[in-house]
């Protein structure tokens, strides 16, 4: 249309061509930046993995030779194995706890109005941006005042508190997309509330539930700031690594790091699957 107006066809084509060339150049520049940033994110991880197989107790280039020694030492390290068991224990119960609190909280924020709702939302979401050290020391002071001994159980309570917001936001987002008419239909057809919940609501939020539980599990497994202040004599895995780093570097750390990277990748793949699926028809 424009060609019949003020501009000639050639002019329009010229502008389009120039624009295309310029956008090609900007795409190229942006692409280069994207590649650089992605390398920035991944090169260190690759370094870590490569050096976990390097036959040298200091991390210097050039590489010495291939070895599995660090992995062998790792599996002979009882203290670390105990820390790993502790981490599984803590992460499991923290995940259960945080789900038990986070899911009803998501329902309450999605569906009911109550006085102080805005403040409740504010507070319960605070740990998303609040540095873990604050959660850790505020709970430490309370436990101290109540005369509680610090243990893995107090760590679980700390993680549970810090991670509620994770489960809450994921489940809340799914509930917001969930079409409530499905529930109305169910109750119109004579479904009791618990039937409606189990057969209609739950299947629709299931993937968000499982996905966010997995996320909470990994975050708890990895947690330091809260654990640091709330643990007693027992150590979790990251706390164990933290304390060995204080003593100095050992390549065993690279080996355990590599295992953590690979294991996290597994968990990520599963949780992506779950978080993206809209597994029941009422999803949208």
């Amino acid at each position, binding site marked *: 249309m424009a060609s019949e107006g003020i501009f000639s066809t050639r002019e329009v084509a010229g502008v389009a061509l120039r624009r295309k060339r310029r956008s090609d150049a900007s795409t190229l520049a942006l692409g280069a930046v994207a590649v650089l940033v992605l390398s920035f*994110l991944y090169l260190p991880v690759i370094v870590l993995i490569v050096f976990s197989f390097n036959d040298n107790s200091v991390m*210097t280039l050039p590489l010495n030779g291939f070895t599995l020694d660090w992995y062998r030492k790792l599996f002979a390290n009882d203290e670390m194995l105990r820390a790993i068991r502790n981490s599984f224990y803590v992460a499991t119960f923290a995940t259960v706890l945080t789900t038990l609190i986070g899911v009803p909280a998501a329902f309450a924020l999605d569906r009911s109005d109550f006085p102080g709702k805005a403040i409740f939302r504010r507070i*319960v979401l605070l740990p998303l941006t609040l540095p873990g050290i604050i959660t850790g*020391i505020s709970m430490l002071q309370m436990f101290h005042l109540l005369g509680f001994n610090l243990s893995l159980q107090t760590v679980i309570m700390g993680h549970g508190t810090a991670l509620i917001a994770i489960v809450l936001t994921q489940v809340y987002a799914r509930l917001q997309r969930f079409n409530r008419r499905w529930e109305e239909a169910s109750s119109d057809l004579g479904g009791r509330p618990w039937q409606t919940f189990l057969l209609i609501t739950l299947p629709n939020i299931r993937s968000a539930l499982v996905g966010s539980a997995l996320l909470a599990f990994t975050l708890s497994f990895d947690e330091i*700031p809260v654990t640091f202040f709330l643990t007693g004599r027992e150590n979790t895995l*990251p706390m164990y690594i933290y304390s060995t780093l204080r003593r100095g570097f050992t390549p065993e750390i690279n080996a355990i*790091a590599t295992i953590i*990277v690979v294991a996290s990748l597994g968990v990520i793949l599963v949780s992506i699957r779950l978080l993206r699926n809209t597994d029941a028809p009422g999803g949208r």
Partner: protein
Amino acid sequence: MRLTAHRRLNSLAVLALPLAWTLLFMIVPYAIMLAYSFFRKQGFTFVPDFNLANYALLIKDPQYREVLQRTLKIALTVSLSAMVLAYPLAYFIAFKISSQRVRLFLYMMVIIPLWVSYLLRAYIWKTILGSEGVLNSFLVWTGVISEPTPLLLYNQFSMVLTLTYIFVPFMFMPIYTALEKIPRSLIEASWDLGVDPLRTFLKVTLPLSVPGLLAGFTFTFCLSFGDFIAPFLVGGPTGTLVANVVQSQFGIAFNWPLGAAISMVILLIVITIISISDRFERAGRIDMG
């Protein structure tokens, strides 16, 4: 009538546990922390004092003021650096990749590091930048420098680098989400009106991505502000941050009241930043109509 009463009872039951938990494990501990911040250390116990001595010390003692200023500066530098890295990446993935599968794949590539242990992501840089580390030995090996330099580690540069590395994915996520939501028709309309791509970006895309930038900034600033792990690993003597001071007050220095006062300051700063970014975001939303 009965139905609504029933429903109210139901929603109360749903709410009871989260409400009780929040009260018992968040509000009460914060209140106790606030109370402790008015206590005074006496020998090996803490006694109530109920004055602002701890807070006054934070303002008066240049040692604490310096740490607080340094932490603010570093958190700000980290947030801006992460923004500079994350924005073009998010823009590239959101606008220049046409296949949805590739977009999703790249998105995951960026956020996957979030799942890899926080501690390890900080520790990696210690092993890379150290004088017996990967980068130094690489530079010596290739002949760029003749002997290892200690300048790479244990300073503010290494700390900003490490924290930026940790927080780029955090910054990326909300920016990408904001960019992806922008209707392509708005940008095309701007081009059709003869506005060149740069000005289109400045006038259309950038303003519409502000909510994402704000969210990313809030996360990165608050979390790096309260970190004590990266300073411990790569910070060195000039890199102590405010959370390290809190940590030592609850450890070796054993002055819980002072530690509680510093924590209250951190809590206050975080709440202020969340409120500001909330307000801005809401204003932005109204602008969009």
